[in-house]
């Protein structure tokens, strides 16, 4: 049993032959809550896909839960980016969550139905979604869909939660409730959480670390150490300013430019 959930050493990502980011050396302690921040197209999802074993590293070493990353790792619960379901998608939330248990297996579920049902119920209770888990997924609100996606990620009893922008389709009130929920569940189940977000402000009260990705570089540290004008300016060797408003909300200015990025 290692104390580090994710360890990266001189890790680099490339899109074909064009580099996305490189020289990433960091370690994420087990049981911690880390926000992955950075401008659009900086390669946040690339890191996630590498951790999930969907793409290979261009260089360097990556260890996830004590081993090399591999696709279909049952110890990882995942909520993909941009998951809002088509209104016509006719499947119950409960059935969708059940796919998180054995959706990758061939055939139909023959044995272990009761055990699976109990696991699904427990995941639904964990995200407090019993009121709408029997309704059609496509007909639910964005917040309800996100909760069921989280339940799906939790149902296999994972050790690591990887959440790709779970807040981006939610209004402020729902964002706050979602972060609160993720943080509570993670603490109760002793999960490591990696959460991609656009805005750090909803997260500040809950996260242990920030992993900043911008301009081809990664930097990790405690939020109050990393999100400062001097530190970000030093890391990215270009003038970055962190502005804080009267309510203590932080705004990072100067990293938005992604001049040479292939996705931009």
């Amino acid at each position: 049993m290692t104390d580090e959930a994710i360890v990266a050493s001189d890790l680099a990502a490339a899109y074909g032959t064009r580099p996305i980011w490189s020289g990433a050396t960091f370690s994420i302690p087990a049981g911690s809550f880390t926000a992955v921040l950075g401008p659009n197209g900086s390669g946040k999802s690339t890191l996630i896909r590498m951790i999930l074993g969907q793409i290979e590293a261009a260089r360097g070493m990556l260890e996830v839960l004590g081993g090399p990353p591999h696709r279909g790792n049952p110890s990882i619960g995942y909520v993909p980016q941009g998951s809002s379901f088509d209104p016509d998608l006719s499947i119950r939330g409960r059935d969708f969550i059940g796919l998180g248990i054995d959706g990758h297996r061939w055939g139909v579920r023959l044995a272990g139905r009761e055990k699976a049902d109990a696991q699904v119920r427990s995941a639904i209770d964990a995200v407090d979604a019993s009121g709408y888990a029997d309704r059609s997924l496509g007909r639910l609100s964005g917040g309800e869909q996100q909760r069921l996606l989280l339940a799906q990620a939790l149902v296999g009893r994972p050790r690591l939660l990887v959440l790709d922008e779970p807040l981006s389709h939610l209004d402020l009130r729902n964002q706050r409730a979602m972060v609160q929920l993720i943080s509570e569940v993670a603490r109760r189940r002793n999960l490591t959480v990696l959460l991609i977000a656009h805005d750090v402000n909803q997260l500040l009260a809950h996260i242990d670390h920030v992993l900043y990705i911008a301009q081809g570089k990664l930097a990790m540290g405690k939020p109050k150490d990393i999100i400062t004008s001097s530190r970000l300016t030093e890391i990215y060797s270009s003038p970055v300013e962190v502005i804080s408003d009267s309510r203590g909300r932080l705004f990072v200015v100067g990293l938005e430019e992604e001049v040479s990025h292939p996705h931009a």
Partner: protein
Amino acid sequence: MLELFRYDFMVHAFEAGTMVAIVAGAIGYFVVLRSSAFAAHALSHIGFAGATGAVVLGLSPIFGLLVFTLGSGATIGALGNRIRGRDVTIGIVLAWTLGLGVLFLSLYRGYATEAYALLFGQILGISATDVAVTLVAALVTVAGLIAMYRPLLFSSVDEDLASAKGVPVTALSIGFMAVLAVAVTEAVQVVGVLLIFALIVTPAAIAVRFTSRPPVAILIGVGLALAFTWAGLVIAYYSPHPVSFFITSLAFATYVGVRLSEPIRDRVLKAPG
């Protein structure tokens, strides 16, 4: 009513119709869930060129149909998500293949009857051999669907998530289109190339309006496809009009009825108590 079954052609029609309805109703759920109704439509049209081509070569039209639907199905499946929103491209290809079919037909002497059977179905002309072929094809499709059930459902709902969980989504997409190709080939015998929607898409589209539980939706879809086929055969027996007309009309009327009654149903369900 039992007098229907005194005739071999009616018995064969019921046997083949029943098997086709079961297959079409079941696979229709996934067609609707994956929003690949247009792909199913395209497969049948591309199959038309294959069928007419086979006739010109002196082969069974079913053979040509199967080869062309399988080939195009595998191609569409391999393109996967990249095919979404390519309606125009698919439309252009299928218009051309229909044109090709017309050329093949003109090269063949039995032009009118063969074309009519392929385009609109000829369930009353099914032989005992056709029934046996349909049985084999039905068993293959049902076995294929059962084998792929969970990962197919998973990747139909959220492909990215399914892929991260280790589901081979591209292989599955090809596998599904191959099974759909066999199902389309079977269904062409009953309703023809042009009316394939009525058996593959309409029953499933009605079913998902009643339930969001996948196994229940599949059962309702199969039930409706059976009901449309059986009722269509019985009505056609007593009337001079074609079976395909009754099957498609029953499917259409049921769909319209269900859509129109939805506001009423919602109000009843939302009523207190």
